[in-house]
């Protein structure tokens, strides 16, 4: 098992590679969700290429770390990670949303290796992550569970039902990332349904919380360092300040790029910009 084999610079480059693949997927499918894929790209890269104990050769390995994409619509970024990691052939990125593709519109654990549970209906994934973490505790296993939530998704009541159970069962093997990009489908989260202070909310529920710049690979890695060995009986929550569409200027912070595919010209522009790297 190789963990921590990439340098910081290589990780940053990898996050760009994943962004390129995610945007390419959506372009080829002419359908899918680029905005929230790009905002989640950096911490998803850190998890898949530096943190998680996983084995592409043995995707169902029972001691593996688990990953739950609770905001399942951003499947393209997870698919990019799985393809680059070798869970599926790289060419699979040309088949997003096609008949018989492992890359379904939303993650499907029956069709794609490396997907620990199917998601797509918002608000439900965190409960599943809690169950996985509790199962690990019951079996005295040392694996951890990582869940990714959207800021809009945190409006679902079930998120808070899951949160209270994670606290009750002292699931310090659970790490929740909130991709706080400030936008949902109908507009800015602040306008559609304000979340209030998400960090405080998770904290009063009993989580160990942290808020970071979700596009700074350094901050993401540091935050992961902090929670790695914190066996203090508390579930962890890392709230990431992010920009929806990050890395493609015309998609950045634009509500309309939530679930829209670029045309040819936009696609080429996006690829050019991504090749230049991120402004963090």
């Amino acid at each position: 098992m190789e963990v921590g084999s990439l340098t910081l610079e290589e990780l940053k480059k990898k996050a760009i590679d994943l962004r390129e693949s995610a945007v390419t997927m959506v372009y080829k499918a002419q359908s899918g969700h680029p905005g929230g894929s790009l905002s989640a790209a950096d911490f998803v890269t850190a998890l898949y290429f530096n943190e998680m104990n996983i084995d592409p050769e043995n995707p169902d390995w029972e001691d593996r770390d688990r990953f739950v994409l609770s905001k399942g619509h951003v499947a393209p970024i997870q698919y990019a990670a799985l393809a680059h990691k070798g869970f599926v052939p790289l060419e699979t990125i040309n088949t997003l949303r096609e008949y018989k593709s492992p890359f379904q519109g939303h993650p499907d654990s029956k069709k794609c290796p490396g997907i620990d549970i199917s998601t797509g209906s918002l608000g439900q994934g965190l409960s599943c992550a809690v169950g996985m973490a509790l199962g690990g505790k019951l079996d005295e296993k040392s694996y951890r569970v990582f869940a990714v939530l959207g800021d809009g998704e945190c409006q679902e009541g079930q998120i808070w039902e899951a949160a209270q159970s994670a606290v009750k069962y002292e699931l310090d093997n659970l790490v929740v990332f909130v991709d706080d990009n400030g936008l949902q489908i109908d507009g800015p989260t602040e306008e559609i349904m304000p979340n209030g202070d998400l960090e405080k909310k998770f904290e009063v529920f009993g989580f160990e919380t942290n808020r970071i710049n979700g596009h700074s690979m350094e901050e993401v890695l540091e935050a992961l360092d902090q929670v790695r060995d914190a066996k203090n009986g508390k579930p962890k929550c890392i709230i990431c300040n992010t920009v929806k569409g990050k890395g493609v200027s015309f998609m950045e912070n634009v509500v309309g790029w939530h679930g829209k595919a670029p045309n040819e010209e936009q696609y080429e522009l996006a690829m050019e910009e991504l090749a230049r790297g991120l402004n963090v």
Partner: protein
Amino acid sequence: MTVMNLKSNEKKATREAFGDEIAELGKNKNILVVDADIGGSCKTTKFMNAFPKQHVNVGIAEQNAAGLAAGLATTGKIPFVSTYAVFGSLRMAEQIRQEVCYPNLNVKIACSHGGLTPANDGGSHQAIEDMGVLRTFPNMKVIMGADYHSTRKLVKQAAEIYGPVFLRFTRDTIPIIYDENEEFEIGKAKQLKDGKDIALIANGDTVHLAIQAAEILENKGISVKLLDMHTIKPIDREAILECIEIGKIVTVEDHNIINGLGSAVSEIVAEQGEGIVRRVGVQDQFGESAPYEKLLEINGITVENIVNKAEEIL
């Protein structure tokens, strides 16, 4: 009325019909829309812009939307909760049961992305059991129009009658079948054609397939009775009894063959103790990402298969 030909080639998604009609209905100050962060997609933006005070967006919180709508209804409002069919039937199912249907409140659940129409989103988003689930709630009416014009009429009527109604729309475009002046009545099947050898009963986005199948059968010299059963509850018992007189029935729906139109028709046929039914619809399997037409084909929801099923029992 004779079988409409589909020559006009005009197509429209029925979610557009909801959007256009609700924007008219908003002139009544008691009509409200309760959105759950997919107003753009469910076509309520026009309503929101025209009647901002009558528009509520609860964010991504469907269960809250249903309960909140029930509360609004107790104050004399007529809320239309707008979301995708999979969430509007299943995520809020118990809130609809306990707080809308049980107290029999005047709440309408208006859902886009019915059936297999959210095709490339995949199985998680395709609502194949929505009408069936809601059909089992007492007081609930369950409706899916077959085209843009009929859907507008049915939405309008849903606003006019008292009580819970579930309305289901297509995400994708489907052919326009009816003239815009055609009238529709909730609970009353629309007869597109009378006949004496076989009855085809379809609803929603499959009616145009049944029309084409009827044409093929007629060309083979088979006399077809064709019904658009837009309301599966309360089902038009009289119309089904007439089909039972013919004795041979094929039902067609973009829904699981369990508990949808086919089941509703079969219940009456079984009670009568005569007649035979073949059900065309989703074969009790989850969908997947694929073009909409491909998904229909996988399930045998095709003109060819409707003809085959009819010939099987003729």
